[in-house]
């Protein structure tokens, strides 16, 4: 057994949330070629080189997974952003029989005053046993503005491991939207070093769990910069025997005067065997801050369902509408209509 995705601060072992255990054989020894990558919207102002860069993480999923990317990656991208106006680049990682295992390292540097959007989409055929272990490292320099959308549509048989590590400098603004639908296990470690004064980091996630799916989200934001701002919004729904662990940490460090941090997590339980485990942490060593978190879980309101059903919808349709309504605010971040429709189509498929 390997213990991975540890929280930055431990609590009682018996609460079963400090880490998650996986079998060692869930990390394959050998990685094969992965060539099915489609890059759309390349621009002269966004330089993409297929080279490996050094990986230095504060947290990460654990030594084994990090080392796999360091030594056995089959896709490497060094991206340097120089565009002053917002440019969008999409990476479609399409998994199939010949390209079933992706171990990738993406290193993005957004130079001072630049702006760009990236979409990373991981999609596989329905019954493929895909494997994904990726690290996205972002350095957002002064006044840069970076928007990243990650879409996980891997099959139910897949394992999806993702590490994100951001450094956000003065007045930089980094926004993530994560759609986490696929995988038998989908495990994410997200860390932001919100170091610059007036820097900002927003993270919006929607997840959907079904069957025996396990979703383990470990989101950590450390605020160092004065007047820095972090907002974490997580909306999810679980059906069947799906299980979700949400570990969210907002950590105000000494000196982060007038910083603000908010974290909101809501889990809709669509079956009586689904399980929602949450640890929304607020850590604070600075007096002059405003921090808040809220976490909620429960069934979709009977009254709301009744109202929708009285308008002629069946129960399943009514549930879908409610889930969509809760996801809507986050889905608004996806401006690309085709992509948004793909996500909506998948919501329908999963909730059927």
């Amino acid at each position, binding site marked *: 057994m390997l213990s991975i995705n540890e929280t930055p*601060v*431990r*609590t*009682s*072992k018996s*609460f*079963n*949330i*400090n880490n998650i255990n996986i079998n060692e054989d869930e990390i394959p020894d050998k990685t094969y070629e992965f060539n099915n990558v489609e890059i759309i919207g390349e621009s002269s102002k966004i330089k993409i080189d297929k080279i490996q860069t050094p990986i230095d993480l504060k947290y990460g999923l654990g030594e084994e997974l990090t080392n796999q990317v360091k030594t056995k990656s089959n896709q490497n991208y060094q991206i340097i952003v120089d565009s002053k106006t917002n440019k969008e680049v999409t990476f479609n990682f399409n998994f199939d029989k010949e390209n079933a295992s992706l171990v990738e390292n993406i290193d993005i540097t957004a130079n001072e005053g630049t702006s760009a959007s990236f979409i990373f989409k991981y999609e596989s055929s329905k019954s493929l046993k895909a494997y994904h272990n990726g690290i996205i490292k972002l350095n957002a320099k002064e006044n840069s503005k970076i928007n990243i959308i990650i879409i996980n549509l891997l099959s139910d048989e897949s394992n999806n491991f993702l590490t994100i590590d951001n450094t956000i400098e003065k007045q930089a603004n980094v926004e993530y939207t994560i759609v986490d639908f696929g995988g038998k296990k989908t495990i994410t470690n997200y860390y932001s070093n919100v170091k610059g004064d007036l820097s900002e980091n927003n993270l919006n996630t929607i997840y959907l769990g079904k069957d025996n799916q396990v979703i383990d989200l470990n989101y950590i934001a450390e605020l160092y910069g004065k007047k820095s701002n972090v907002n974490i919004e997580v909306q999810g729904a679980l059906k069947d025997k799906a299980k979700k662990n949400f570990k969210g940490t907002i950590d*105000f460090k*000494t*000196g982060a005067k007038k910083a603000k941090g908010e974290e909101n997590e809501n*889990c809709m*339980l*669509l*079956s*009586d*065997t*689904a*399980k*929602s*485990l*949450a*640890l*929304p*942490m*607020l*850590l*604070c*060593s*600075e*007096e*002059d*801050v*405003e*921090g*808040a*978190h*809220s*976490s*909620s*879980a*429960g*069934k979709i309101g009977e009254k709301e369902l009744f109202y929708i059903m009285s308008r002629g919808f069946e129960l399943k349709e009514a549930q879908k509408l409610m889930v969509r309504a809760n996801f809507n605010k986050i889905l608004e971040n996806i401006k690309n209509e085709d992509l948004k429709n793909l996500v909506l189509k998948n919501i329908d498929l999963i909730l059927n």
Partner: protein
Amino acid sequence: MAKTQVEEINRNVYDIVDKDNYDFKIEKGITKEIVEEISKQKNDPEWMREFRLKALEVYNKLEMPTWGPDLSELNMDEIATYVRPKTKLNNSWDDVPEDIKNTFDRLGIPEAEKKSLAGVGAQYDSEVVYHSMKEDLKKQGVIYTDMETAIREYPDLVKQYFMKCVPVNDHKFVALHGAVWSGGSFVYVPKNVKLDFPLQSYFRLNSPESGQFEHTLIIVEEGASLHFIEGCSAPKYSKINLHAGCVELIVKDNAYLRYSTIENWSKNMMNLNTKKAMIGKNAQVDWVTGSFGSKISMLYPLSQLNGEGAKTEYTGISFAGEGQNLDTGFKAIHNAPNTSSVVNAKSISKNGGKCTYRSLIKISPKAKGSKSSVSCESLMLDDISVSDTIPVNDIQTDEVEFSHEAKIGKISDKTIFYLMSRGLSEEDAKAMIVRGFAYPISKELPVEYAVEMNNLINLELEGTIG
């Protein structure tokens, strides 16, 4: 704008050290021989002697906690686990030796008993030195006595419940407690008996480099009702003292128990206490807790809602000053349908003190129709202090309503400005805000019953903000 100055809790009356005038003090450390000697000194029945030795085996097997405050300063080889004061159990304050009685007089205990309590127990170091209860309650079948007397006089009741609610393998310090426990109170409230006034037990640890391991066992039978108050304090020494008490509450169907604690241990105390309630059908347990003292506290009372419609409420405040690390919180396990838990936790950190709210709300698959609502608020009074919130919410079924909210921050400049525009001085405005912050908790504390609580909440918080 000047910073709010909230002084540390004034500890004068608590810090008066009485002469370490014991009758017997066990050698320091924790070995089989020491446990056997404690058992012999206490004249244990055979089953208790065996229980202690088994608990010691568990203690030796279990590891130290891998989370929470650093306990490396605690060296069990430096702690005497049993100190018998120079007196027997008394039922009149007049018979209590002068030096011990003076201690309790200073804390206001005999005075509170006269005014507003149905019964009082007082423990000094490892033994209970005073116990008394109003005559009419005895006639109704209420039992309120020290644990040693309970083992002798009500062996079947004690044997049935002792450390069944909190098993010794729960954690290392419960196992330690099982091995060396001494003193504490036993309460039995018969079916449908409702006590109008509270019972209060007060625990005072006077001896340096020692531990207090009192055991409180309360059984509230069906339809009965009780308010129990627990107070704790100790003078300050330079070396570590240890408190590892254990509280077991058995609250049967339709019964009610309110358990209030004011903990004001000295700042050399490691307070590693365990409290748990088993709550029956439509019964309710309310916890009201004020944590002010100790160097390190790790205390998370647990309400196990076992009967349909069982309820629990936790109302707690922690105040951590210089050198203090108060890691406290609450656990509720919903094990039956339509159960409910409400948590209202507040903390104030100042002068480098650290407050942590740590909790678990678990709604098991059996607990359909249950509700839980948690609210935590933390106030930071300077930028050298720390305040952490570490709650775990484990929801295992769909028909539930669960919500958790937490806020952290300093006293708002806008609020101070508003109050000053209404004619208050800046100091009064700040004092009012801190008082207002603590009010939802302090109003629940039985201030009218214990002088000590008045000292802590009113005198200290109100009077020393400058």
